[in-house]
């Protein structure tokens, strides 16, 4: 790559690197704050406001101990891994497939695309969806989480767009060789859209990791199937106000409650942060193109 090392270039570099450093600092603040808070002394934690740069009071792992001794965390992790794994594999598969199909110039292309788009814009609501799932018999089973979470119209459109951006020369030469559409997709095109597939896979995984609402509705009777986020949410959102106002509860400001909330946030978030490095390798600059010239 030919580089011009002009003054402008150097100035730009300084600005750019400086900007990135500033950005990193600003972005790491919330994570750092939560991490520090989770290691702090609970009573001291109640005094503090603002960002924590280091644990306040005596650093302690008590919060984590309280969280971990709750065995449902393990169950939650296992379930989440199952759901995320299924979503990653099945979801990416179907999304890519659908994106491919929608990118082919067929007569029904427009109709199929609109069909998919329409589902993104209009929804019947909670009760009808629940009734459909109920009739299918998947309520209170794992499938209620896996199946509806598989296909996401938004990502399908992204995949479609990605396939469409590929030069048609690949397709043509493959067709010359007599390849059918499936072969074309798998052997020729997929390697070219690897980056987008990786992104879609990551989006799907993150979405599934963070999702708790479907589980709260469809898995009401099966706590053993709950994903991690739902357990987290139960701990984070203690809706005591209603009970207090009806006189059936007496509020006692739980000193460790605050601490546990921070610990729970870390426990539920750290793993997913580690996923990006694996996805990054697909973003290698300049995918080598081979096979077709002109």
């Amino acid at each position, binding site marked *: *790559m*030919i580089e*011009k090392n002009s003054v402008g*270039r150097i100035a730009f570099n300084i600005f*750019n*690197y400086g900007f*990135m*450093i500033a*950005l990193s600092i600003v*972005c790491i603040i*919330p*994570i750092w704050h*939560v991490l520090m808070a989770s290691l702090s002394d609970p009573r001291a934690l109640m005094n503090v*406001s*603002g960002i924590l740069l280091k644990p306040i009071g005596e650093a302690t792992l008590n919060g984590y101990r309280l969280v971990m001794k709750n065995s449902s965390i393990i169950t939650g992790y296992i379930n989440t891994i199952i759901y995320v794994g299924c979503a990653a594999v099945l979801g990416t598969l*179907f999304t890519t497939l*659908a994106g491919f199909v929608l990118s*082919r110039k*067929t*007569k*029904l292309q427009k109709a*199929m695309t609109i*069909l998919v*788009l329409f*589902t*993104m*814009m*209009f929804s*019947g*609501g909670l*009760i*009808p*969806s629940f009734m*459909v799932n109920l009739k*299918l018999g998947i309520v209170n089973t794992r499938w209620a989480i896996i199946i509806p979470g*598989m296909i996401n119209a*938004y990502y399908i*459109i992204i995949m479609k767009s*990605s396939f*469409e951006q590929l030069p*048609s020369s690949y397709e043509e030469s493959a067709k010359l060789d007599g390849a*059918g*559409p*499936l072969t074309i997709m798998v052997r020729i095109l997929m390697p*070219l859209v690897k980056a*987008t597939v990786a*992104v879609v896979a990551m989006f799907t995984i*993150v979405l599934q990791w963070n999702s708790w609402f479907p589980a709260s509705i469809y898995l009401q009777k099966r706590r053993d199937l709950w994903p991690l986020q739902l357990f987290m949410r139960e701990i*984070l959102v203690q809706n005591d106000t209603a009970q207090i106002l009806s006189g059936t509860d007496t509020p006692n400001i739980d000193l460790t409650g605050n601490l546990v909330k921070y610990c729970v*946030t870390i426990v539920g*978030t750290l793993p997913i*942060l580690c996923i*990006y*490095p694996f996805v*990054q390798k*697909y*973003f290698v600059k*300049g*995918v080598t*193109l081979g096979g077709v010239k002109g």
Partner: protein
Amino acid sequence: MERIEKKETAVTAPKSNWKWDFRMNWSIYLLFVPILIYLIIFHYLPMFGIVMAFQDFNPVKGFFGSEFVGLKNFIDFFSNPSFLQILRNTLVISLMGIFLGMPASILLALLLNEIYLLKFKKVVQTISYMPYFVSTVVIAGLVIEFVSTNGVITNLLVSIFGIERQNLLTNAGYFWGINFFSDLWQGLGYGSIIYIAAISGVSQEQHEAAAIDGASRLKRVWHVTLPAIRPTIITMLVMRMGMVMTVGFDKILLLYNPSIYETADVVSTHVARMGLNRMQYSYSAAAGLFNSVIGTTLLIASNMLSRKLADTSIY
């Protein structure tokens, strides 16, 4: 299978001949069938629930037994005194997010592309999207602190711009800014991922060709990189226009307070409040349908526009 002679027509626009099309593309349609089945069962079938918006829905009577009231729910919704206000707020907040937020993410992707220290780049990328994963509750809590009367951001603004010292969340004029920047904080890094991926797909050869022609770095970005990722940008833009009415109200719910309802109340938060006092099935269904219709209109409009102006469109 297909005879070689047909290859000429296979790569050009399909002839308007159904039988021919089916013969060519039957395998593609076949691949679509499972997806179609899925969409019908899980998305189209439940759509019958939209009738709720036209009924006085009672869960016991169900969809077939509830009284049909026509447009009454919509009239209730539109005649609410704050309707225009919440509509304006929703549109302003969403459009700010799109037309200011998207360029920011794209810019970040471009800047990251210019970093050559690979390790540095990877680390910055990872850190930049961390805030996305911190729960909205924590971010909202931090923001409320920072903009309080003696908060960090308030101090900054007072010293730099000399604004009056107050709790910024009690002044309706600041809310849009506060909401936008907190959204930016959370979403800048994560939103740039798709563009980073797209940029990585730009062929090296084109860059080299342009460089040989004497194009400066900046020119190369403008003439090679951006056009190459334009379809991605357009796609994202059109999709987000379609979701204008629905995004982001979780954070707003946590940040806002009654004294700034005039700029902070959006359709979703308003409907949520209406639903606190009583089971508001039909009202929220009507509001939801309204959201969908507006979103679809915007989607179609922006799609048509992008087709005319940029030659790319979603459908």
